[in-house]
C-alpha cells in the first residue's frame, strides 16, 4: 500500500470538510473583492448599480462555484485535467471561428448571462494539465529532453491560439505561467537559462531589424514600444493613458484624496478606469496606504497558498496550488507594473478587483481547486 493511499484515509469526509477549508484564504479573497466593490462604486460616481452590483452578483456565484469545487476530492480534478485542457483548446478553436470580437480584439463567447473568454479558462486548465503531467512522470525523467518537449508543446499550442486572436498579454501570461509550473516540477535550470538567452537574442534581433528590409514586426508595433519607452512622444494616444495613470497614482500621496475625491478618475482623464486601470483610482483616493494594503493582501494570498503547498505531500496538489498562486501573482504584478509605467500597456485586469465576469469566475474556481487540494491533502502519521 502506497504512502498516499495510506494517508488519505485520514482525509475528512462529508460536511466535516467545511471545517478543514483554508478559511484565512477565503477571508483574504473576500477582503480583496470588497476593495474592488468599493472602487467600482467610486469610479461609477457613487452609483452602485452600474458596476459594483453586477460584480457582487458574480462574486457570490463564483464563491458558490468555489465551494462546490473545493468539496470534490482533488484526485477527481487530477483525472479531469486532460479533459479540461482539451475542452479549453476546443473553446479557443471555437472562438477563432464563431467568437465575437470586442474592443481590443479579445474574443469571447456570449453565454447570455455572461461573456466567457476561453483564454481566461485556459490560464487555469494549463496549470492543471502540467501539474497532472508531472504528477504522473517519474521524478528521474523530469529533465530528460524528450519529457521536456511534451510540456513545452502543451504550453505552446494554446499560446499560439491566443496569440492569433491577437491577445499578446494573455499569451505572455500563459507562457510564463506554464514555464513556472515546469520550474516548480524540477526541470533543470539549464533549460531556463537557454530560453532566457534566446529571448534576449530575439529581442535584440527585433530591434536591430528596425528600418531594414527584413524588419521583423510592423511599424505600428514599433511605435507602441516607443510609446512605452517615452510616453510623451504620443501624448494623445496610448502614451496619454500611461501619463495620466502615473499622475493619478502619484498625486495620491501618503493617504490619498479620500473616497470619491480623486480628480483624475472623476474628470475622465483615465481610460478603462473600471477595468484595467482601477488600481490608479485606489492609489489616488487612498494613497500609498491604500495601495500598499492591497499589495499586502495579495502577498498574503500567495503566502497562504505557498504554505498550503509546502505542507502537501500530494505532488499534483502541491504543484497545482503553487501554479495557481504563480498565475495569480502574474496577474496583479503585470497589471500594477503597467499602471505604474513599468511595463507596456497590455490588457491584463487586476485580479478580483477589476470589473469583469470571466476573470472573476475563473479565479474563484481556481481557488476552489486550491481549497480542494488543501482539504484532501494526505495527512502523514
Amino acid at each position: 500500500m502506497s504512502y498516499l493511499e495510506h494517508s488519505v484515509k485520514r482525509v475528512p469526509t462529508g460536511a466535516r470538510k467545511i471545517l478543514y477549508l483554508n478559511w484565512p484564504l477565503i477571508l483574504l479573497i473576500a477582503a480583496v473583492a470588497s476593495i474592488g466593490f468599493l472602487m467600482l462604486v467610486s469610479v461609477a460616481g457613487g452609483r452602485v448599480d452600474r458596476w459594483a452590483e453586477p460584480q457582487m452578483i458574480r462574486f457570490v456565484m463564483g464563491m458558490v462555484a468555489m465551494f462546490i469545487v473545493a468539496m470534490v476530492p482533488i484526485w477527481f480534478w487530477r483525472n479531469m485535467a486532460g479533459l479540461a485542457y482539451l475542452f479549453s483548446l476546443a473553446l479557443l478553436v471555437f472562438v477563432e471561428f464563431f467568437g465575437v470580437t470586442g474592443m481590443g480584439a479579445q474574443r469571447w463567447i456570449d453565454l447570455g448571462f455572461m461573456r466567457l473568454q476561453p483564454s481566461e479558462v485556459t490560464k487555469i486548465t494549463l496549470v492543471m494539465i502540467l501539474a497532472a503531467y508531472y504528477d504522473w512522470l517519474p521524478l528521474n525523467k523530469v529533465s530528460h529532453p524528450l519529457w521536456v518537449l511534451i510540456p513545452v508543446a502543451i504550453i505552446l499550442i494554446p499560446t499560439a491560439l491566443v496569440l492569433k486572436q491577437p491577445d499578446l498579454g494573455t499569451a505572455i501570461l500563459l507562457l510564463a505561467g506554464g514555464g513556472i509550473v515546469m520550474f516548480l516540477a524540477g526541470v533543470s535550470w539549464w533549460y531556463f537559462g537557454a530560453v532566457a538567452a534566446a529571448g534576449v537574442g530575439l529581442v535584440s534581433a527585433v530591434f536591430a531589424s528596425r528600418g531594414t528590409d527584413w524588419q521583423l514586426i510592423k511599424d505600428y508595433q514599433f511605435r507602441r514600444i516607443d510609446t512605452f519607452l517615452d510616453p510623451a512622444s504620443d501624448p494623445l494616444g496610448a502614451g496619454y493613458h500611461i501619463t495620466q495613470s502615473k499622475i493619478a497614482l502619484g498625486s495620491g500621496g501618503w493617504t490619498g484624496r479620500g473616497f470619491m475625491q480623486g480628480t483624475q478618475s472623476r474628470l475622465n482623464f483615465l481610460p478603462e478606469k473600471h477595468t484595467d486601470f482601477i488600481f490608479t483610482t485606489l492609489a489616488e483616493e487612498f494613497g500609498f496606504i491604500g495601495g500598499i494594503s492591497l499589495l499586502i493582501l495579495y502577498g498574503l494570498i500567495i503566502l497562504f497558498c505557498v504554505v498550503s503547498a509546502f505542507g502537501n505531500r500530494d505532488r499534483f496538489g502541491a504543484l497545482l496550488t503553487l501554479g495557481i498562486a504563480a498565475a495569480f501573482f502574474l496577474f496583479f504584478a503585470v497589471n500594477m507594473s503597467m499602471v505604474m509605467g513599468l511595463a507596456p500597456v497590455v490588457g491584463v485586469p487586476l485580479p478580483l478587483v477589476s470589473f469583469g465576469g470571466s476573470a472573476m469566475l475563473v479565479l474563484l474556481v481556481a481557488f476552489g481547486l486550491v481549497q480542494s487540494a488543501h482539504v484532501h491533502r494526505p495527512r502523514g502519521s
Partner: protein
Amino acid sequence: MKRTPKEVEDSARLVTRRGAVLGGVQLLFMGGLALRMRQMQVEEADEYRLLAEENRINMRLIPPARGVIYDRNGVPIADNSQNYRIIIVREDAGDVEEVVRRLKRLVPLDENDLERALRELERRSPFVPVTLADRLSWEDFSRVASNAPALPGITPDVGLSRHYPMAEDFAHIVGYVGPVSDYDLSRIEDPDPLLQIPKFQIGKVGVETKLEDRLRGKAGTRRIEVNAAGRVMRELGRDPGIPGVDLQLTTDWRLQNFAQARLANESAAAVVMDVETGDLLAMASAPAFDPNKFVRGISSRDYGELTANTYRPLANKTVQGTYPPGSTFKMMTGLAALKAGVMGPEETVWCPGHFQLGRRRFHCWKRGGHGHVSFDKAIVQSCDTYFYEASRRLGIDPIEEMCREFGLGERFDLPISAVAEGLIPSVKWKAQVRGETWRPGDTINASIGQGYVLTSPLQLAVMTARLATGRKVMPRLVKSIDGLETEIAPTEPVNVPAHLMEMTRRAMYRVSNSDRGTARRSRIVEASMEMAGKTGTSQVRNITAAERAAGVFKNEDLPWERRDHGLFVCYAPFDRPKYAVSVVVEHGGGGSSAAAPPARDILLFALYGGIPPVEAYPSDQRERMRTMYEELVLRDPPDPGPSRSRA
C-alpha cells in the same frame, strides 16, 4: 502514480525548494512594486500633485474642416455648414426633466432624438456633455441662447457638418459622408484618433470615400481648463489642425443639373465628355437621391423607399450600370471588318431582312430588308444583316481587339464607387469564365452589341470621343487637388487607318443628317453645331417564336422591365468635335425615340453653355421644345456670398 514514501519525500523537498526560490523572486518583485509606489506617492508626490492640478488643463481633439469639393467653375458642390446644437450637462442641469420641458416650449425637439439623448445622459457620467438637439435653425438657436439663464446646464454650441448645396445633382459622383461605424473602424488598422470622436463624419460613397485621405485633414487640439466638477472654465489655446484639401472636379454644375433634370422621369444615365481633354462635364444618373439625408442618418422609411424603387435611385448608372450597347456597337464591328480587309469599303451585302447561319436564322430589325447595303448605309440605317455577315467573316477576336482600342471593357480609374468593367467577350473569355466553347452564333449576336456584350454609359462616351478625335482620350473627373491641376495624360492615336475613321465619322454624321438616318428627327440644324451620332436599341429579352407568330412586337405592350433599352451616342460639332455624349434610357424603347432627344438637348446645352435657342432645332420641333424648356425646373445659381464657411 504510486510512489514510495522516499519518492514522495524527494518530490516534496524539490517542490519546496523550487517553490521557495519562486516565492523569493515574487517577494522581491512585490518589494520592487512597493518601492516604486513609495517613490511615486511619497517622494515624488508633490510633483505629481502639481501635474494633477495642471491636468485641469485638458486636451480635446478638434475635428478639422473637411475639404470643399468644387465644380469646374469653382461653385461648391460639397461644403461644410454651421451646425447649431444644444448640449446639456446633467450635473449642471439639476432637474433634467424640468429643463427639457422648458426647452421644448422654446424649440421643436424630435421625440426620437430626445429619447436617445436622455438615455445617453443616464448612462454617462453627470459632467459629460450630451447633444440634445442637432441642426437647429438660427432662430431657434438664438432663442435658446437668449433664454440661457432659465435653462441651467444647457449650452448652445456650433459645429461643422457636411452639406451638399446641389442636393440630388451630384449624389452619385460625390457620394456622401456619414458617422463612423464600428464596421468602418474594424477595417482600418491603427485608426486615426479622430475617428473615435462620436459622430465624426467620413466618406461613405463616391469621391467622398475614394479621396477620404485628402479631404479629411489632420486633427487639431484644444487646451481647455476644467474645474473640479469637470466643467470647461475657459479655453487656453488651440492648434486648429490642418483642414482637409479642397478638390475641384471637371464637372459643370449647370450642365449636370440640366442633364439630371432632363432625365428626371426616366431610369436613365447620361455622360458628357470633352473629346480633347477627357474632362467629364456631366455624369447624370436618374433618378437620384438627396445625399444630405444620409449625412443626418437616413430614416429607415426613406431608405426603404430608395431601395424598393424599381428605378434604383441609389445606383450610379453612368459607371455601374452595364447594358448591351445594341447598335451603338456597330462602329466597332464595322471598323474591325474594314481594318482586317474582310469587307471592302464600298462592298455591299444583300439584306433580305434576315441572315442564315446554318439552321439558325438571325433577323434584321427591318423585316422587309435593306436590299444592297454598304458600310455607310449599314451605319446610317442601322442594318443588322451587314454586321452579321461582317462578323461571320471576321470572328469575335478582332472585334474584341477593336473594342479595347476604344475603351470598351476597360475599368477607368475614376474616384467614384463601383466603376464597372463591362464585358467584351472573346473565345478565351468564354472558355475560361464559362467553360464553354465559343459558337459562331455568339459572334453574330455580339456583332450588333447583343449577346454577352455589356458596356457602361461612361465607356460609350469614351468610345464616342475616341471616334470623334481618333485619339485615345482618357476620362478625367478631378480637375485639381489643393489648387494643383491634375495632369492630362498625353493621348496616342487609335490603331485604325485615318481614312476608315473618316468614313465612320461621315456615316455617323448621316445617321442624324440624312433622309434615311435613324436619328434624323434629332438632328441639329444650327450649321456650326451639326451633330454625328448613332442610335441603339438593345433587347433585354429574347423574342420567342410564339411571340413572333402572335405579333407581340411592340415595346409598349410589354411590362416596363422587359422593354428594350434605348441608347444614343453622339458628338458635335461634326467638323471640329468638342463634346461627346452618351445616353442610356433603361427600358425606354427605341434609341432614336427615347435616347436621342435628351442626348441632343444635353449636347446643345453644353455647346451653348445654357438653355439652347430653339433655332438650333428643326423648325417643326421648335414649338414643342419651347414648351419643354419653359416647364423644365432648373436650379438657381448658388448665392456667391460668404455662405461657404470654413470656420
